[in-house]
Each structure stands twice: as structure tokens, then as C-alpha cells.
């Protein structure tokens, strides 16, 4: 009985982490139609930068949340730089976008190896969230429960941004029809920079939030990127609800699939992804067929 409860609880919380990971990708892809293959590296960079300050490697030891904010802002800034200097020159040129994002991910991965070395970094759970919660017969770590709360907060925040602010309206206009948006006076290129920075920042935030669970190590980028892609495909890109529901669904598939079908553990994510692509290419909630 506990087995099913644990798996269910973990599906939801892992789904929360996946949402944080993929929200940024979905945003960038939905708005700018750029498959941001640097996304895994941004996640990893955020984790490394955050870990540096949580562990106190530069002599400065910070509160976990402060370190998370710092990591998010740093990577968001780097994302904005990359967008202005590189991606801006390639509107619609998907092949060049693939080349530059993959090139940047090579550089980021090797850079992390150079700076932080090959050893994994352990990120301590923030002390206020250490320990376990008891929900009936289920005993579950507080931090993992906190992740789903964080994911919901971020989701609501993004929804408010997109639905209730002028910036959000401009973003949605830019998604639906960039040319008309320009005509109406929306500074679309500035918007793109902001959106890319937001997406990058989200990825970094996910990285450091995931740190206490996943630790930080070389290769983290390659491990997480396929997960982001699976979520975006299943949930549908450009749709916040799609990202959220898709993440939870992938969380369930990951947990129950691996536990119940261990022989198929390698395929447990890619088979459903393939099915969705074949039967409903826009994903569960996507508005347009990619």
C-alpha cells in the first residue's frame, strides 16, 4: 500500500520539478519557435552556480533561496546576452538555431568541467525543509513536497504574467502574429530577449531547486534535456497548462513505468512520446501542430 502511495506522491512532485524544467523550454519554443537545445546546459549552469553559493566554494556561503535567486538572475542575464548577440541574427533559420544552441551547449558543458572539475557537488536541503512529513501511512520528504508547491507558485505566476499583464498580452500577440504585433507598436525583438531570458532563468531556477535531489555533476545537461523534450511534446508547446499537465503525466509515467515495467525502463518515456507524436502531434494541449 505504501508502495503505491509513495509512487503517486513522487509522481506529482517529480512532475513539479519537470514543470520547472520544461516551462522555460515551452515558452521559448512556443513564442520564438526556437528549439532551445541549450536548455539542459542552462539547467546545469543554474545548478552549479547555485551550488557554489550554497556550499560556499567562493568563500561566500549563502542561504539556499538567495543562492537560487542569484543563479536564476545570472543565467537569465546570460540568456539575454545569447539572444541579443546570436539568436537575433537567425530569425526563422532553424538549422542555424540548432547549430548555435548545440555549439553553446558544448561550450557550457566544457566550461563547467573546467571550473568545477569532474566531481559531483552535493547540495544540502535547506534546513527549514529538511525532514519528513507524515500523511497518514505515507512518510514523504518535506523538500519534495515543497517542490510541487514551488511549481504551482511558478505556474500561477507565469499564468498571471501571460494573462493579466500588458507584457503578457504583448507576448501572446507576438506568439499569434509577430508582424501585426509590430505594426501595432509592440517591440517584438525586445520581447524576444525578455522571453528568452525568462526561459533561461526558469531553467536555471529548476536546476538549483533540483539540486538537493539530483546533485550537480557533469552530464546533468544531457540527462535532463530529453526529459524536457518529452514533457513539451506530450503537453504541447506554448501552452502553460499543457506544460503543467504534461509534467505531471510524465512524472506518473516515469515513476510507475520504471517500477512496474523494469524490463522496459529505457523505453518508458519515449514510447508514449512516440505515440502522442503519431496520433496527436500537437500534444495534449498544444494549440498548433508544430
Amino acid at each position, binding site marked *: 500500500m505504501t*508502495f503505491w502511495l*509513495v509512487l503517486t506522491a*513522487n509522481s506529482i512532485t517529480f512532475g513539479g520539478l519537470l514543470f520547472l524544467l520544461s516551462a522555460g523550454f515551452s515558452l521559448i519554443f512556443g513564442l520564438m519557435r526556437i528549439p532551445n537545445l541549450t536548455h539542459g546546459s542552462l539547467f546545469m549552469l543554474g545548478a552549479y552556480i547555485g551550488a557554489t553559493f550554497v556550499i560556499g566554494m567562493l568563500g561566500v556561503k549563502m542561504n539556499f533561496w538567495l543562492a537560487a535567486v542569484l543563479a536564476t538572475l545570472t543565467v537569465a542575464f546570460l540568456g539575454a546576452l545569447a539572444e541579443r548577440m546570436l539568436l537575433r541574427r537567425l530569425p526563422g533559420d532553424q538549422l542555424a538555431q540548432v547549430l548555435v544552441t548545440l555549439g553553446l551547449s558544448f561550450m557550457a558543458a*566544457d566550461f563547467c568541467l573546467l571550473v568545477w*572539475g569532474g566531481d*559531483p557537488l552535493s547540495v544540502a536541503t535547506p534546513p527549514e525543509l529538511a525532514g519528513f512529513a507524515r500523511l497518514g501511512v505515507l512518510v514523504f520528504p518535506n523538500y519534495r513536497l515543497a517542490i510541487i508547491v514551488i511549481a504551482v507558485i511558478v505556474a500561477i505566476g507565469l499564468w498571471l504574467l501571460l494573462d493579466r499583464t500588458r507584457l503578457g498580452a504583448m507576448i501572446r500577440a507576438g506568439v499569434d502574429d509577430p508582424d501585426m504585433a509590430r505594426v501595432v507598436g509592440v517591440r517584438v525583438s525586445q520581447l524576444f530577449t525578455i522571453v528568452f531570458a525568462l526561459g533561461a532563468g526558469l531553467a536555471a531556477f529548476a536546476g538549483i531547486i533540483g539540486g538537493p535531489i539530483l546533485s550537480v555533476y557533469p552530464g546533468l545537461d544531457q540527462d535532463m534535456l530529453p526529459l524536457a523534450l518529452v514533457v513539451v511534446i506530450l503537453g504541447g508547446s506554448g501552452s502553460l497548462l499543457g506544460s503543467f499537465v504534461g509534467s505531471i503525466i510524465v512524472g506518473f509515467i*516515469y515513476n510507475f513505468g520504471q517500477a512496474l515495467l523494469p524490463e522496459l525502463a529505457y523505453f518508458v518515456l519515449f514510447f508514449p512520446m512516440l505515440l502522442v507524436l503519431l496520433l496527436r502531434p500537437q500534444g495534449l494541449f498544444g494549440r498548433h501542430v508544430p
Partner: protein
Amino acid sequence: MSRKITRRKFIVGTAAGTAAATFNFPAPAIAQAAPFKLGLLTVKTGPLAQGGIQMEQGIVTFLKEKNYTFAGRKVEFISADTGGSPAGTKTKAQELIERDKVDTIVGPLAAFELLAITDYIAQQKTPCLSLAAAEDLTQRRPNPYFLRASATSSQAMHPMADFAAKELKLKRMITISEDFAFGYEQMGGFQQTFEDNGGRIVNKLWPPIVTPDYTPYLAQIEGVDGVCQGFAGSNPLRFMKQYAAAGLKYPVVTGETGGDDALLRSFGDEALGMYSCCPYTLDLNTDTNKRFVAAMNKDYGVDPGFYCAGLYVNGMVVEAGLQKTSGKSDDKTEFMKAMKSVSLTDTPRGPIKFDNFGNVIGDFYVRHLEKANGKFINKTVKVYHNVSQFWTYDEKKFLEQPVYSRNYPPLKS
């Protein structure tokens, strides 16, 4: 953070060094003017870089200690980055053998890399010393030019199982390890010895190599009195964290990679109490080990683990072999024979010698992860002497059984 080795090619041999060397060692009958070329196949980019960087640190520490001189000959050291792929390993092996004309290769890191080049190095008759644990290369498909001074995948697990059954008095255990050959061979060895000693493996879990969250597997661990894990690389760190986060409190036993001393700097409280069995242990009280650890601390600011020590010992074997042939390495078969007959007593891992397959017979240490002075340490609690790759089993019978795999030994239902 460790200091990086920035220059790839090392050609160091000062006149003073050579002179000092010729005074310290018995003068070779025929002075070898040509330098001895030692090639290293390692991984410096990508996820396997953790072990690869440590490998290079280990061998360079030894070379520095010997002033890049073995048995009176200058040593030219060439390091090659395979990128962690079998094709890359083949290419770099070719580079070392055909372009750089190395006399001996140390490395590569991973079993699949070694398997990609085993036929090639046998063909080229280039002696190779590797940490790669692929069992059959010293068992059912032996390569006469291959020496392994560290351990086969199961060599450390047999004593661990013995300890778990006899000292920890565990009776029912679950094994969990990555879903690949190194995992199968480790857990297979553990299972065989554990069950021979009255224990029972209740279930075997195999998460894929890329598993960010082990919870689906951890949720299946119950109804046992112990867990055996065989993770490698940076996975043990994540596993132990998630193990503790799942509220599991069963004693954990592991092998050489799961409790590696090099991970001590990354582990947190969740790893306390873990037992590991390793051919190397940081607190071994031999002169060489004390020198070795001090040099590692000085040059790289880190404590060495299994990978560093393994390459340091490989260097010792090469040097001892050259001593035996009085510095001659042209006749590769002779040189290989000399290295195979090496028997050392004072190494960072204690006494070693080789069996007729080229695999080491040596001491294995069972350590207990504890905290001392605010630092995590692996405290040696038991030493198993003269452990061979066949443990206490009859060699012929062992070779007749199939190689350890996912389903061998089978689960007793």
C-alpha cells in the same frame, strides 16, 4: 577544486634526474638511450571525466615522484582523451601506438572502451594496464597483453558478501545497480558469495544508467535487512541522498566505486554507516600510500580514491617490470612477461601479484563510512588478504559457469 593539468605532453628528463636515477638504481647492463614512452587513455570531457581526470592525477603523481625516470630510462608521457566513446578510444589507441609509438598503455577507463581495443592491442602486442573491470578479459576471453592491477567487477564484491553474511549477519538483501555489464558483474559476484554463506537475494533492481530519480526503485525496497548497491561515477552520491530521503534505514554495502574515497569530499550525512569493499583505502598505513596521499594533497588539494590509486599502482607495475628487464622494452613479449611476474609488497594498496590471467591477487579492504573531525572518512574495519578474481572458488568450475549477467546467478524464487 583540483588543479588542472594543462599541458598534454610531458617530456621531462633533466640531466640531474637521470644522473640521480642511475646512482639510485642498479646500472642497466645496456644503457637505453631512447626514452620509454608511456601512453594514457583517459576521458577528460563529458560525464566520465570525473574518473578520467583522477586517473591522470594518479599516474602523473607517480611519474613526478620518480622524476619521470624508470629503471634509469627517461619516461615520455603522452595523455590522450578518448571522449568516452569506443570509436574515440580506438582512434586514440591508434594515435598512441602508431603515431607516438608508445611502449605501454595505461587505461582506458571504461569496460566498453577496453573491449573496443582489446583485439587491436593484442595484435599490436602493446602491453596495456587498465582499471576497466570487464571480467572476461582476464577469464573466458583473456588478452595476453592485458594486466589488471585493480580488480575485476566482482573481485571486491565477494569479500563484501562474505563480510555482510558473516560479520553483519545479514540474511535477506536486495541488490541495486546500474543496468549495464559492470553492474551485473558486481551484483552477480555479491549474490553468489552471499547465497553461499546462507544469505538470500530477494530482488535485483537495475535502474538505467541515466536515472535522475531512483524513487521508483527505492519504493520497492522492503522486507529485507540490507541493501547492496553498485553505482559508479557520481551516481552513488545521488543514490545515497535519495535513499535517505526515502526514509530507508537498512544498512548499505557497496563495492569499489560506490564508496570511493574520492567521493568522501562530496558525500553528506546520508552516507554515514555505509560499508564498502575496495582494493584501495585512504587510511592504509604503508609508506608508499602515505607518500602518495601527501603528494596528491599537495599537487591537487584532494584525497585520492580508487581511480587515482589504481593508476599510481599501474605506474609502479610498469616501473617494476622495467627494473626486471633492466630497462629493456623492445621485446614486448618479454616485457609483458616481466610485468606479469611483478610482485610488490609496498604499494598504496598493499601487496600485489598477478595470476596467470594477468589479473591482480591482492588485499581488499572493508571500510565503514564515519565522521571524524568534521570530515567523512572510510575507516578500515577488515582486511581480506590474497583475494583473487575467483575468490575461494575453484578456478575451473568458475570459468565453466557463465559470466555474471543480469540473470546469472538467477533469483531463487
